[in-house]
């Protein structure tokens, strides 16, 4: 009871609300300043620069050196202090120039299962002779990927983020960051590349496939050796039936081959919403998802029946993708 009351109080906590409204404000400001687009070129209106912790340490060293110079009235220590100050003053320009003009384009997103990592493929490129170093793309707090644009001016990199809920998941703003050249300043941008992931339900096992229908030979199903359909030639192995030896090829002067025959069982499996009576929506979807994966693995053709959705039994990557998508986008996404 105390837990629930405290959790409710956090939402009423004025500080919490202030943080929330601040976040909303910055988000709105960001979306105005850096609107969503599938291809973005970084420029001064999108880039922010602040010193890093190492940069603050550098400042501290400068302060200490200034004290040393002042107390010993030593001009060379002063000169060195001012040199470091000036380097610190020049650095943001370099850091900024390293990111400015970098072009980012979303190439592809890959679907993932909930609880796994979803990946987006992004092309990073730049023009001109300037070398871009240490570009880091990430969805904080995840660690992202780094890329240097030195010899080649374009690179494709994959960055991933964990996904928890099924459905269409809009990725948060991507952080593009660089600390080049000395790591004392951090220049970054939060860009919205319009990354949307399709997230399938998390596969949760509900036992073996609910196989009930009769097995007959047909187009789909489990492959079984020794049927009547000619499949392919394979090198002759001792013990193969002589009836299956490919004499024609042997006569043509090639090695001894035997013809391989197989047959397919027509196991048509309906993965039905109603099979999982009594479970919650998400659990049903998760179980169905697991069955889909099992069926693909065992090459059992499967169809899907959800309330309002019906997909004919079939096999193959395309079918699998359709079925999983139907599962992912099933309405009534449980919160």
């Amino acid at each position, binding site marked *: 009871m105390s837990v629930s009351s405290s959790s409710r109080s956090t939402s009423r906590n004025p500080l919490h609300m202030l943080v929330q409204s601040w976040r909303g404000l910055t988000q709105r400001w960001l979306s105005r300043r850096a*609107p969503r*687009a599938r291809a973005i*070129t*970084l*420029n*001064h*209106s999108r880039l922010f620069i602040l010193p890093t*912790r*190492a940069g603050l*340490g*550098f400042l*501290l*060293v400068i302060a*200490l*050196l200034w*004290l*040393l110079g*002042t*107390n*010993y*009235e*030593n*001009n*060379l*220590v*002063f*000169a*060195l*202090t*001012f*040199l*470091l*100050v*000036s*380097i610190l*003053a*020049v*650095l943001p*320009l*370099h850091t*900024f*120039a390293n990111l*400015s*003009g*970098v*072009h980012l384009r979303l190439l592809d997103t890959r679907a993932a299962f909930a609880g796994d990592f979803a990946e987006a493929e992004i092309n990073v490129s730049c*023009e001109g002779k300037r*070398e871009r*170093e*240490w570009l880091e793309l990430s969805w904080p707090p995840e*660690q992202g990927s*780094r890329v*240097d644009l*030195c010899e080649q001016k374009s690179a494709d990199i994959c960055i991933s983020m964990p996904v928890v809920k099924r459905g269409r998941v809009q990725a948060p703003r991507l952080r593009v960051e660089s*600390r*080049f*050249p*000395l*790591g*004392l300043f951090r220049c970054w941008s939060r860009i919205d590349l319009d990354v949307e992931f399709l997230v399938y339900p998390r596969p949760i096992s509900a036992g073996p496939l609910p196989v009930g229908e009769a097995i007959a030979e047909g187009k789909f199903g489990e492959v079984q050796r020794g049927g009547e359909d000619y499949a392919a030639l394979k090198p002759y192995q001792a013990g193969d039936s002589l009836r299956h030896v490919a004499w024609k090829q042997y006569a043509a002067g090639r090695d001894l081959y035997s013809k391989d025959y197989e047959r397919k069982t027509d196991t048509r499996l309906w993965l039905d919403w109603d099979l999982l009576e009594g479970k919650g929506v998400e659990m049903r979807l998760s179980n169905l998802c697991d069955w889909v994966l099992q069926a693909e693995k065992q090459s059992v053709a499967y169809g899907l029946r959800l309330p309002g959705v019906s997909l004919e039994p079939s096999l193959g990557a395309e079918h699998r993708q359709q079925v999983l998508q139907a599962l992912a986008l099933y309405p009534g996404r449980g919160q």
Partner: protein
Amino acid sequence: MIANKDLLPRESLLWIFAAQFVALLPQFTMLPLWVAFAWAFAVFWRLEVFRGRKDLPGRTLKITVIALTLAGLALSYRRWFALEPMIALLAISFTLKNLELVSRRDAFVSLLLAYFVAATLFVQEQTIPYALYGLFSVLVITAALAAQLGQFSASPRRALGLSMRLMAQATPLMVLLFLVMPRLGPLWSVPQNTSAGRTGVSDSMAPGDFTELSKSSKPTLRISFDGPVPPPEQRYWRGLVYSEFNGRTWRQGYGVDPRNGGRVYWKSGEQVLPQVGPRYRYQVIQEASRSPWLFAMAQPASESPGVGETADDRLVKRTPVFNRFSYQVSSWPRETLPTPTSLSNVERRRNLQLPSYGNNRTRQWMASLRGQGLSAEAVSSQLLTHFNNAFTYTLNPPALGGDTIDEFLFDSQQGFCEHFAGSYVFAMRAAGVPARVVAGYQGGEWVSGEEYLLVREYDAHAWAEIWLDDRGWQRVDPTAAVAPERVRDGLESAAGEEFMQDSLFPLHRFGILSQLRLQWDMINYRWYQTVVSFNADRQQNLLQRIFGDLSPMRMALLLGVPIFVLLLGISFWAARTAGRPKLTPAEKLYQRFCQRMARNGIRRRSGETAGNYARRIAEERVELANYAGAVTEAFEAVSYGGDARALKKLRQLSSWYFWLRHSANMTPHKRELAGY
């Protein structure tokens, strides 16, 4: 747990070690030897860890190592709050940090420390080579910092090039800051190292001291004159007065040194000086000597802060000279001053003091002279004649036994300035004349290019002063009686073949090399005058020379304008390099059209084609339909049809719109087209 991406790669480790090495290298000579070994061992260990042959040290080992090094520091240094122990501590922290150099953060800490260590070098030395070395250290440390950002940056060419570029770009701002940043005085007094180990005139004179000095050609004083330059035979730079003799060593005696109660006139004007102007005004730049003695001609007065005059006509500094120090001196030659009244009893006794026994032959000889009723001057000239007749000036005198004065005066008769001065003063005292040994430098080399006198260690000299009742203290240089060229032309001509014969490279024998050396010293002098001794006064002078009177307003402008220009430049540059594609004239005109339409409430959506946009305008604002249609048609004709006439049309349309909004004189055709 340290994330894998933050583990240091090999290149970055090597760079850190290189930066540490460069920063520590000049310090190794000053640090205890074991620190250098500890550092090298730590580096070795860390590299072995990298190669997977060893583990990072565990907690017990680390604590043991820390305890050991702290104990080592405590044993090596008695004082903690001084510069050298501090540098040692920094070196130790490098060393220990290397043993746990794991993450990027550790690397940054280590490199930031390296900057500080590199700077401490300047507290010890401010010469040009050290300045260049300091610059080199910053270059390497900055490169190491850059190399922390990955494999590409860690290539030596790339990292050093980047670091060099950064430093070059930073230089203008650095020079500006150096010139205008206000200099505050020391915020608190800093303890300095007093461990000796430098050559130079010391506060005692034992046989052999000056021969040691004669082996060094290090510059000690650089003196530039404002007005007349004293002739060579007047160039006696007094630094110390020895009045106490124990049979072997001459010392200052009790109550002379300001550190044990000697009287010093710290404020100018405290000492009564004649109204007649001083004969010589000059500035002395003295190298670090780690002692408070300053050098000047008799009778000196100085208005430089922290400099005072002693009762025996010398200058001293309040704190020892740890860095190059420059002071202004005015000197009144003694003959221009009114004759002093008399010697106080204390002073007379002090300057007649002799050991109670020893050197009997000298005492007997002097007693016989005194028995003849000779005056002090007559005794002195007898002595000098004795020196002149039989003595040899040499840098390699035979060793003297117990009665040093007797042996020197009657047996060996070979010696150096300290022997002549010491025995002369002893003899004069034995004859009842107050006398004292004065130590300092004599002569110097005139550097004509920069108009200053360069005094080196080998110009160190000792001479005597005797008290004459009617004339006061008089300088007598017994060495001059034996080797007048020593006084006139300096040690080199006096000592001949013996001069600097022990030095590894007898460079002075080659004329061109000594010429080069002099040139080098001239550059050093410039360097010192312009950079090292640039202080608040000079800063004010310089700024005043450039900008006239310095009101706060001007000062603000001086600081503000460059910063403003810099910011403007940056924002201009940022706008230029923002990666914005260059627009064609037609695109610019069309963009202006879009802005105008947006002001009318119809904003072009991203990705919307020009045609769609025109159609939307026609739907939402009927009165603008014609205009939008015409503009779009012209724009498309230019952009996709390459029609040059259409561009003219587009321009026209663009200007019509402006006139439409701002004037009433429009032809009906245009008005109709523009939708009004």
